């Protein structure tokens, strides 16, 4: 099978997976105890008013029809209106999704910038005390929950040292002419640096430990022995031969890490009052705002699916030995 056919097939699988996740969500919400409108319909409503609302939400249709409509709307990314603000869910998501992506993107990039050299360093110092300490250090940061390191970070850097703001994305009253102006402003990065570093402190252990393991495996391969036999210095063997080949699984894991980071946005955004879709989702679940909860969940799922898709493609692109079957 050719590359093009592979991509087409994977895109098709992507759509099918998306519809499957949407279906799961539909039945999950329907199976939940209580009426889907329980929080929307006030107690003071008359029977007739309640009936009119049920009708307007299509809740009097048979279940299979409701399901088909839901799938059709999910494909069009139409998730209805928010119960609280009556704004279209996609508008709320559109206002916030880039805030999430920029924060997640910068934290994953930071995690890689630190994690990959750190992992190579650990493999290079294999068997020595520095390696043991380094591995434990990586495991420590993987074990410390992000919301806790976030709290510690806010306490130390925002409240005690007064270096950065304690939360939110911009200073009160600050306005920006466009999203681009926002993301290139000093004010934005002043707010973003702490949550980005806190999140990166959690995620760097993935590339670090992957890089270490991958280096250790590559170092046993023939071409590394051969390079050593040719009399190339240890340092050059490491950098030119071992590290380059070891990078392969680490790079493909980048997309996987991005996918995890998307799921983690619900936590970091809550701690730092960051106006992204993760926090929007948490708040809408708390408020039983079902349309927003469903919409944000599906958008997060799309981002994870796209990340996995990118990992698949990158895998074949970076390693020509992979055949598309």
């Amino acid at each position, binding site marked *: 099978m050719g590359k093009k056919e592979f991509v087409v097939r994977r895109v098709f*699988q992507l759509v099918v*997976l*998306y519809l*499957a*996740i949407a279906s*799961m*969500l539909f039945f*999950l*919400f329907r199976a*939940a*105890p209580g009426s889907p409108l329980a929080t929307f319909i006030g107690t003071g409503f008359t029977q007739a008013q309640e009936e009119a609302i049920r009708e307007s939400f299509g809740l009097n249709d048979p279940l299979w029809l409701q399901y088909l409509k839901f799938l059709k709307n999910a494909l069009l990314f139409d998730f209805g209106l928010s119960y609280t603000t009556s704004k279209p869910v996609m508008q709320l998501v559109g206002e916030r999704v880039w805030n999430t992506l920029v924060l997640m993107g910068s934290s994953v990039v930071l995690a890689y910038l630190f994690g990959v050299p750190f992992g190579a360093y650990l493999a290079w110092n*294999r*068997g*020595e005390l520095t*390696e*043991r300490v380094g*591995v*434990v250090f990586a*495991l*420590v940061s*993987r*074990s*410390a*929950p*992000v*919301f*806790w*390191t976030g*709290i*510690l970070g*806010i*306490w130390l850097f925002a*409240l005690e040292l007064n270096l950065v703001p*304690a939360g939110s994305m911009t200073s009160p009253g600050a306005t920006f002419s466009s999203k681009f102006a926002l993301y290139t402003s000093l004010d934005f990065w002043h707010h973003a640096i702490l949550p980005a570093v806190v999140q990166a402190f959690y995620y760097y252990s993935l590339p670090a430990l992957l890089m270490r*393991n991958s280096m*250790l*495996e590559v170092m*046993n391969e023939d071409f590394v022995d051969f390079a050593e036999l040719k009399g190339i210095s240890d340092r050059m063997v490491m950098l030119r031969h071992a590290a380059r080949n070891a990078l392969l699984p680490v790079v493909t894991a980048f997309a996987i890490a991005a*996918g*995890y980071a*998307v*799921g*983690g946005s*619900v*936590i970091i955004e809550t*701690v730092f009052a960051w106006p992204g879709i*993760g926090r929007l*989702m*948490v708040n809408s*679940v*708390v408020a039983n705002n079902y349309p927003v*909860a469903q919409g*944000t*969940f599906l958008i*997060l*799922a799309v*981002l*994870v*699916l796209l990340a*996995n898709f990118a990992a698949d493609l990158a895998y074949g692109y970076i390693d020509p030995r992979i055949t598309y079957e």
Partner: protein
Amino acid sequence: MSETESIEGTTAATDTGGRTSLRERVAFLKEDRLGFAGVIVLTFVVVVAVFAPVIAPYDPAATDYYASFEPPSAAHPFGTDNAGRDIFSQLVYGARPAVQVGLFSAAAVALIGMNVGLVAGYYGGLIDDALMRLVDFAYGIPFTPFVIVLVGLWEPSLWTIVLAITLLLWRQTARVVRSAVLNLKEKPFVKSARTAGASDRRIIYRHIAPNVLPLTFLYGSFAIAWAILTEASISFLGFGDPDATTWGQMLQAALQSQALARDAWWWFTMPGLAIMATVISAFLIGRGYEEQLNPQLKE
């Protein structure tokens, strides 16, 4: 027959760890001091959870507004929170949900993941395809948001959290076990068992399963860590069991009750340290075990 089986089983050891006695299996702890430390800490947490009512000096929910925000003292070794509740007693009781969620989720994840992997890898074909698409499906779902939705929609209880974690976390074990099974089923001991007329069921559970048990244990120990971290996050976000005292809820309360602005460090450091120590011990056990299975990683 059993003779050949065990010999072939040892050959398979290069792939999956092979068939070894429990004593051999935990022998790595003698050399691996970090893994040993992990076992000690995890055992300690389990003991604390079991004997929480005996250990805790106070009722973790008992308020005393005359003693709010007290720093550590002889009466309150880890201080008190905004309502005068004893932090130390809350920490002790917080071990219970952590142990409950960690161990039950990990056991369920290992059981489901191993069986899916065994069936998919052994039968192949359509069954394999269907099960692996199910794994892809599970991988497409954002983990923490899924747990939030499920717990937010249903009764917020520890069992709902265990269920939500299990529903997604089996995916990794299933994938790893399946690829090990794909290797194992081509081995002579499986072929000879088949020739001797053993049923599929017998081959899967008598001949193949023992060889993937080490892998299952490995991913089970990682699942303990992920489950405890996830439960803490969910509690922190406010979706935890309202009837339980959990480390995540303690941190949520600390953040919401101005513990940071009031410098009540004892309140917001201790629960995090407890989570971290418990989670890292599960990771250390898994890591020691992984190095035993894959000696290339060892120094």
